[in-house]
């Protein structure tokens, strides 16, 4: 607020100079203009919050200036100055959105008072706007949380209800396969067709099971088992675990540690799951013979990870939806669309943050922050 200036607009030079000099003496930062047109030019260049303008000016008058300001700079407040016999102009100015008007001759204290009031009004309005924004964002978050909470309850129920019949299908299918594989069935007609159909059932069961198990992972709020986390070690372990996939596409992972390792307290097994999932995604997205980079930087009370691939990237329209459940771009049956959703849940459960940036064709970068969860002594 303090950096914003006053703008004094009046065509009468003597009057303007007198006010400007006296206001400057009182420590007000201000700009002056001798007509409405030059006032608007100044406003385009400078940050101005309160305008004190004469109404009667040659060319554009004060009321037109007011209309211009209100449409272009709605955050500014205008105080109008009228000739002493012309209160009606002032009133119509207020009707058009002026903060107030003063009749000439004016008292400087009175003017300063009005300026301060105008500024208070501006800051009050800004605070209200911020509060409204804040409320709006809270509302969004609450809706999202509620949706997730109900999804959690729902998914646990669905998973339970689906898993049991799925288990029956699974055993029935396996039984039939065993029977078909027995000697007495060796030469039945169309055995191949039956085998083929059963193997389709089998793979579909696996597919459905992956979804229900993922959902259960989400709905289950694991108790955090907080212990020392050695991020370097966790990453090395995860890379080892993925070594086959890495070899297959000839992808190299470079780990760069930007500061001395600090042991933080968090849940290693949950972090391992996050790493595993993000690195698997990165490998899937990468082109063969590429690099994946991991940057670790230890902060005072946590650790930041960046996982960067040079793969396909994510189209901008998908950036907001990748964390939503069941969002996937993989072929049906290849991804459940729950991976990143679960990851986000885990990271938030560990009081951390996760975000991503991506450029189509250039690659994707995930930034994750895990705070130290040890109680401060």
């Amino acid at each position, binding site marked *: 607020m303090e950096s914003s200036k006053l703008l004094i607009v009046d065509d009468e030079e003597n009057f303007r100079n007198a006010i400007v000099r006296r206001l400057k003496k009182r420590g007000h930062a201000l700009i002056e203009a001798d007509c409405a047109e030059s006032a608007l030019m100044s406003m385009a260049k400078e940050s101005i919050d309160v305008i004190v303008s004469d109404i009667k000016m040659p060319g554009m008058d004060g009321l037109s200036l007011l209309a211009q300001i209100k449409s272009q700079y709605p955050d500014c407040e205008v105080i109008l100055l009228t000739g002493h016999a012309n209160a009606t102009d002032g009133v119509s100015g207020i009707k058009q959105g002026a903060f107030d008007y003063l009749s000439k001759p004016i008292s400087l204290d009175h003017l300063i008072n009005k300026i301060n009031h105008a500024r208070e009004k501006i800051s009050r309005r800004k605070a209200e706007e911020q509060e409204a924004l804040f409320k709006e964002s809270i509302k969004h978050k609450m809706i999202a949380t509620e949706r997730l909470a109900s999804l959690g309850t729902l998914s*646990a129920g669905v*998973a*339970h209800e689906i*898993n*049991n019949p*799925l*288990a*029956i*299908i*699974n*055993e*029935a299918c*396996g*039984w039939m396969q*065993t*029977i078909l594989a*027995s000697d007495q069935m060796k030469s039945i007609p169309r055995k191949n067709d039956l085998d083929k159909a059963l193997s389709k059932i089998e793979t579909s*069961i696996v597919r459905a*099971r992956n979804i229900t*198990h993922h959902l*259960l*992972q989400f*709905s*289950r709020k*694991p*108790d955090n088992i907080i212990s020392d986390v050695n991020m370097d070690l966790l990453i090395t372990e995860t890379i080892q675990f993925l070594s086959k996939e890495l070899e297959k596409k000839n992808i190299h992972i470079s780990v760069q540690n930007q500061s001395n390792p600090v042991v933080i307290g968090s849940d290693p097994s949950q972090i391992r799951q996050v790493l595993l999932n993000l690195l698997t995604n990165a490998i899937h997205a990468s082109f063969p013979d590429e690099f994946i980079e991991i940057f670790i930087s230890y902060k005072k009370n946590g650790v930041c990870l960046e996982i960067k691939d040079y793969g396909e990237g994510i189209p901008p329209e998908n950036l907001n939806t990748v964390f939503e459940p069941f969002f996937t771009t993989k072929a049906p049956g290849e991804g459940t669309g729950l991976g990143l959703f679960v990851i986000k849940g885990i990271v938030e459960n560990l009081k951390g943050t996760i975000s991503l940036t991506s450029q189509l064709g250039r690659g994707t970068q995930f930034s994750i922050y895990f705070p130290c969860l040890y109680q401060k002594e």
Partner: protein
Amino acid sequence: MISIPINILLVDDEKDFVEMLSLRLTEKKESVFLANNGKECLEIIEKESIDVIILDLKMPGMDGIQTLKKIKAKSPLIEVIMLTGHGTAETAVDGMKLGAFDYLLKPCDFDTLVQKLNAARKRKEDQEERIRQAEAKLLLRRSGVI
């Protein structure tokens, strides 16, 4: 190689599941007994010589954990593999602390299940073997041979 069938007791309130899994295991030449609740399970282990129990954790009435406690109190040598259909891995871990051999998420992979069944039976046999040897030693000592 002829393998000796494992005496398996399946406990689950889902009748179709119990039936299908038992048919499948029987097809694989295992010997399978069925129970639809904890009470039936406890009755069967009184009468039959069971090696391994496959126990669903979520059952109406006496639940899996309660049943497990009673099994372990009655016949601590019987190995129990728990089945969970709704992500209660925590409960399963609690069950292992109470003496269960292992757990599987439903629907389970058959090969994994067979592996665990064999491992469970082996543990039971090893334990029984140690007991026999200890008993033999005890007898020898009593009869003054050593």
